[in-house]
């Protein structure tokens, strides 16, 4: 299993550099992966992991550097070439086509005649060999997130790749499904001598599953080691480049927070005095119950987390609470008043602010200025009957920008040119301005770096301290454990359980996420 020192590694990257305009995504990155190992690639968002893998898959062309496969230099100009070299990737998003059947998805990227029978047989063989049951005839759009993942893995393994790349594979998986995946990966490397590159920002996962690890920071290799000789804490340090505390900062990095009992969060809120109450919320879409009778209560000044793996109805709940989707049944009460969800803008008027999951789609208008984005919800305050009052608008924007530490060259700068963290602060500032009683934060830290994540945590806490009820929709276990007072778990559109954080353990939450009662 251990390769000899003289043997050429199955994959070697030397001095890979890739810039997008003024931004250097990868800066002279070296990476060496041997057959028979799971190699972890760890880094924060924006550290260059994805760019490096895009180079490796032939999706983007590198500016500089060498790629060697089994000691041979290769050009790697197209996805086809990468596939021929035996490099396969299990993509997390954007790679299965909902409208097509499983076997049709698997057939994509092949060449020659389409032979349905042969393909279905092959899929059955691969899925039997690795213990990943899937129905080749099923339409992908009807599958759960975990099943889709299986399709991805089978699709990739069927091509018999020598190097298998997995990009954040567990974000859509329950704990049990993740275990299943890592078991498969273990077999793939140990019994079949393939190499696996596991990209992740989750420390626990890297520590659990990999043999060696390379840490990227700001486009450069910051650290490499044999995983067994490191600790999650050490990896966390290398990832951000400084000491990290084990509390909130650790949580932001994917370490379970260590609670200080002295400052334990109070759980004795009067849960009857709720500011947000969802009762029997049900949404049907294409005959599927995406949300199925969701009951949830958020009290003033508390943070309630809705935890679950991606794709279990959280996005739909976010859409309902944004007023984008009218539920088929159920009610939403804000501050004791039932809200008529068929009319636009009423949720916001009732005092509900939302940090939507996809901030570029529905959080900000990227090409409008910071000031315009900040005052978009409070136009009455900054305009007369017909005309905007520029001065009032700028004054209000200035106030919010100062309060929320938004770093921007000017208030006229388009939001597009701000960093992710600052864009998210713009959303948060706007949604908390006015008389907000409830704040819904859907995956508020997705795609942010550690500094920005910590800042977001602090602000959510501060909002709760001021009496705002916060509903945190999150897929990160560490995040909900660090922030919430109550944790409700969603699975397949249903709330499978809710417990105070003092009673929550990763194991109990894991069972609820899997749809079992804990």
């Amino acid at each position, binding site marked *: 299993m251990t390769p000899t020192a003289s043997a050429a590694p199955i994959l070697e990257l030397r001095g890979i550099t890739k810039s997008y305009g003024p931004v250097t995504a990868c800066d002279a990155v070296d990476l060496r992966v041997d057959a028979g190992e799971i190699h972890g690639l760890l880094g924060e968002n924006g550290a260059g992991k994805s760019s490096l893998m895009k180079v490796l898959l032939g999706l*983007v062309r590198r500016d500089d550097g060498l790629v060697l496969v089994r000691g041979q230099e290769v050009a790697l100009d197209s996805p086809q070439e990468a596939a021929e070299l035996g490099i396969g990737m299990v993509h997390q998003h954007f*790679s299965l*086509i909902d409208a*097509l059947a499983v076997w049709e998805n698997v*057939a994509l*990227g092949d060449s020659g005649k*389409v032979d349905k029978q042969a393909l279905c047989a092959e899929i059955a063989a691969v899925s039997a060999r690795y213990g990943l049951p899937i129905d080749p005839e099923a339409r992908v759009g009807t599958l759960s997130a975990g099943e889709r993942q299986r399709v991805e893995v089978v699709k990739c393994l069927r091509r018999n790749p020598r190097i298998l790349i997995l990009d954040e594979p567990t974000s859509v998986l329950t704990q049990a499904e993740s275990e299943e995946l890592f078991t498969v990966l273990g077999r793939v490397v140990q019994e079949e001598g393939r190499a696996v590159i596991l990209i992740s920002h989750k420390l626990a996962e890297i520590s659990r599953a990999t043999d060696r690890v390379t840490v990227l920071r700001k486009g450069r290799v910051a650290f490499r080691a044999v995983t067994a000789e490191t600790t999650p804490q050490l990896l966390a340090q290398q990832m951000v480049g400084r000491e990290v505390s084990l509390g909130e900062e650790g949580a932001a990095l994917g370490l379970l927070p260590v609670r200080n009992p002295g400052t334990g969060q109070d759980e004795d809120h009067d849960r009857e005095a709720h500011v947000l109450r969802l009762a029997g919320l049900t949404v049907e879409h294409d005959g599927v119950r995406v949300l199925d009778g969701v009951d949830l209560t958020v009290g003033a000044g508390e943070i309630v987390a809705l935890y679950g793996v991606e794709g279990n109805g959280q996005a739909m709940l976010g859409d309902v609470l944004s007023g984008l989707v009218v539920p088929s049944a159920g009610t939403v009460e804000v501050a004791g008043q039932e809200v008529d969800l068929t009319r636009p803008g009423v949720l916001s008027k009732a005092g509900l602010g939302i940090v939507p999951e996809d901030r570029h789609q529905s959080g900000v208008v990227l090409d409008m200025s910071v000031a315009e984005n900040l005052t978009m919800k409070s136009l009455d305050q900054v305009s007369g009957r017909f005309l905007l009052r520029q001065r009032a608008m700028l004054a209000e924007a200035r106030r919010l920008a100062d309060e929320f530490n938004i770093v921007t060259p000017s208030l006229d700068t388009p939001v597009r040119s701000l960093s992710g963290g600052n864009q998210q602060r713009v959303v948060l500032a706007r949604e908390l301005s006015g008389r907000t009683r409830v704040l819904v934060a859907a995956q508020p830290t997705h795609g942010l770096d550690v500094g920005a994540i910590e800042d977001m945590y602090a602000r959510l806490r501060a909002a709760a301290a001021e009496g705002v009820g916060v509903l945190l929709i999150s897929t990160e276990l560490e995040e909900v454990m660090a922030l919430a007072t109550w944790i409700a778990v969603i699975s397949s559109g249903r709330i499978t359980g809710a417990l105070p954080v003092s009673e929550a353990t990763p194991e109990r939450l894991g069972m609820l996420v899997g749809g079992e009662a804990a």
Partner: protein
Amino acid sequence: MSALDSTSTILASGVRLTVPLALAACGEYVAERAGTMNISVEAMMLGSAFTSVATASATGSATLGLVVGLLTGLVIGAVHGNLSHRAQINTFVVGLVLNALVLGLTSFLITTQQFASHQVDLLSVPLLRDIPVIGAPLFSVRWPAYLLIPLVGLTWWLVERSRWGLELRAVGENPQAADVTGVKVNLRRRQALLWCGALAGLGGAYLAVGEVGSFNQNMTAGRGYIVIAAVIFGAWRLGRTLLGCLVFGVSDALRLALPPLGITLNAQLLVAAPYLLALLAMLLFTTQHREPAALGRPFERGST
């Protein structure tokens, strides 16, 4: 005229009016499955109608006119494809410009000279043509109409069974995903537009040298848009799309047949009938949301 005779007459006229729509619809169906809402199908039909008549007049061969018509559609498809799926110009803008350009150009060119009238031959199938009522309308028609049968089969097979069609559907549903699996997204879309151009060209040429025998200004009169409506009516399935063509074709035939039968309705209203029907059909059937998910969405690598 007996009721049976008039039914047969209306049916015959309905078939004649359906064939060009159905040919073009086979093309439009493919373009839309690949993700292009191709409104230049009108330009393809009108342009080819003109070139087919001009060619037939110059050479004396209506068949050659048909071939040149097909090539004209192909050229317009290539222009559209390169502008919108290579140069990334908005596909609707390209379509509108092409439609306006072809309308203007043909309206001008028709005034520059006289074109002799040529028509392709009738082809009657013995025995079958003697079936009462439906015999003559279906089995005694201009020969290119029979091409519809293999072309429908071929279109279906290409889209549903061939690898090309699988990639085409993938491109129309989720171009990003198709791209990462190694499908050449914009190439497939350009190819789909070529297929659309060839068939819409054939449809337009059939209208001109097949049925009418001459060209007059704006002779397609929005039939391209009716074809688009038929694809929507058909919820992006080939069989239902062709059914839509038949509905529109027959309603067009009824419009022509009613006055001779002594039924008088407001003439303008009758002219508008197929279009009103198309509008109604779209209103009733678009709620099914069966369209290709990436219809009308351009693809450029690197943008999501």
